């Protein structure tokens, strides 16, 4: 079965670890990969696509050397295979201009300010991945336990995806 991946990007290793830990309970269903720069992130995405899987969610810092987070998200959004990927900025330092660009040019889905509240990242990840599953038309059954079951059920009902399995 196609795996849905989560990618975390931050140039500070401590922060990256912290974000990963927030996703521990999701990791068994949605494998997690990490990157410390935009370049590494693009490599990770290439690996995921090469193995036939898809990227469901990216959690990305903004201030990074060379390419910054917003630029990465905009670049990703230009790629058709990544347009459904849910995009979340996790940052303490994106100014208004950068955030506007992220919203308008990359269709940013969520913004989490550092430092984040307890469980904020985990909750956001669940919500975003629920959206991803619904919009990608993927069979939601394997994910009911881990994601927002109520929402998934509603979409099944509305889209008439209920099967006789």
């Amino acid at each position, binding site marked *: 079965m196609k795996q849905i991946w989560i990618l975390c990007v931050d140039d500070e290793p401590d922060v990256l670890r912290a974000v990963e830990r927030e996703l521990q309970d999701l990791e068994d269903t949605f494998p997690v990969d990490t990157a410390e720069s935009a370049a590494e992130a693009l490599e990770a995405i290439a690996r995921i696509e090469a193995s036939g899987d898809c990227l469901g969610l990216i959690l990305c810092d903004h201030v990074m*050397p060379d390419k910054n987070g917003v630029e990465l998200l905009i670049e990703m959004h230009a790629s058709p295979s990544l347009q459904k990927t849910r995009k979340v900025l996790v940052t303490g330092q994106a100014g208004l201009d950068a955030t506007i660009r992220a919203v308008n040019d990359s269709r940013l889905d969520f913004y989490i300010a550092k430092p984040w509240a307890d469980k904020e990242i985990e909750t956001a990840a669940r919500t975003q991945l629920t959206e991803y599953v619904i919009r990608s038309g993927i069979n939601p059954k394997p994910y009911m336990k881990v994601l927002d079951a109520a929402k998934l059920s509603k979409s099944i009902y509305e889209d008439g995806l209920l099967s006789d399995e």
Partner: protein
Amino acid sequence: MSKPDNSSGQSSDVIAMIEKLGYEKTEATVYERGQMIETEGSLNLNLYLILEGEVEMLKRGDLDSSTRVDVFGPGDLLGLTSFWSKEPSFLESRAISTVRCICLDAEKIETFVHSSPEVRETLHRLFISTLSRRYRRIASLNLKVSELSIALEREKNDLQAALKDLTETRNQLIHSERLATLGQLLAGIAHEMNNPVASLQSAFGHIEAEFPELIQSLDPASAKLLKAGLSSAFVDSDSRRQQLEDILHKHPKLKRSLARRLASLPLEHFELLCQFVGKDMDDTALVKALSYYETGSDLRNVGLSSKRIASLIQSLKNYARPDSHSWETIDPIAGIQDTLILLNNRLRHYKLHLDLPSVAHIRAIPQELNQVWTNLLVNACDATAPGGDLWISAEQIDHTVIITFADSGTGIDPELMEKIYELNFTTKKTKAQFGLGLGLSISKDIVEKHRGQIVTRNREPNGAVFEVRLPIQN
């Protein structure tokens, strides 16, 4: 106003002549002081030959005011132009003192003109001298106007220059005020944070020492894992990814999240943990072992983070110091390092090359020098695209300490080399800049106050170099 130009020589001729022709002095018309002789705008039918007294010529201005245009005295002819032109009087005349004059109407003048050539000529000379006198007066007035205009222009320029000076001084004061306020705020924040941080560090020190012993007494095997965590080392992303794959390969049934946690362990700790858990990698045992290990590494993290905060606060306190602006003997390198720490957020986008050996201590006002370092570093960052290079070096030659800031940025336009130190000169266009173009100018002032100099040049292949030379004063 000047005194009347007395053509008394001619007038006495005329008076003599008039007397000859039968006019007595007593037939003169008398005007009392303040009395109007001719009014502006009226038709003038007489010439007035003044025998005694003074008459002022007035021009009416706005709001019932009059300007004195001329003054006539004995021997002068009044009403000459209005009489002959038959146009309404341009000016009006008023007696300033008691005036005696002979009134000559058209008929009388006809008589004089026809009486004898001598009389006629004298009259004509009188007319002409009156007119030429007026003309000279106009010329000298025009000259005066021209002089006054030049003086006014000069005055205007002086005032403009003074205004410009004042505006610049005001800006500089506002800037200083802002900096002073910020300095106060920074110092205040630093002091506020000091206590909790000190408390944090002290408490952590105790926990670091006590906690492992506590666990040791309860569960010696697990304590070993905790202690390992306390000394955990950093594992880079690529190694982690590799390790994760290896683990999943060896233990395909393992939960991915657990595998990831395992992959973060440096090799020797990983082996230690595997010993602890046993070959089958039981989930529960694994979770317990990882918890002990990770608590250890979290504690380590707390220690490192609080040290980092403490160091930042110390740098802030060293940097700001708003209370004293006094001279001290300081190590210039310390100030540079504090500034580097405080600017880390900007500097981390660049490749920093530091060469800061110990140099002699110098007499300086530390927070003013810090301002210079900050200004030069910020300028270097502004001029250089992220990923570029910044070089900061120090050296001592004889009795001078030389601190050099070089960057691989856009460099300075050779034509602007002189101008960059001027007040309000800036090439920064973005509105986010706090700068008013005062930075380099103030830095130069500070360096000169320290009896040093700033030297600027461009660097090959690109970028600029700023050298600050400071004398060591013993």
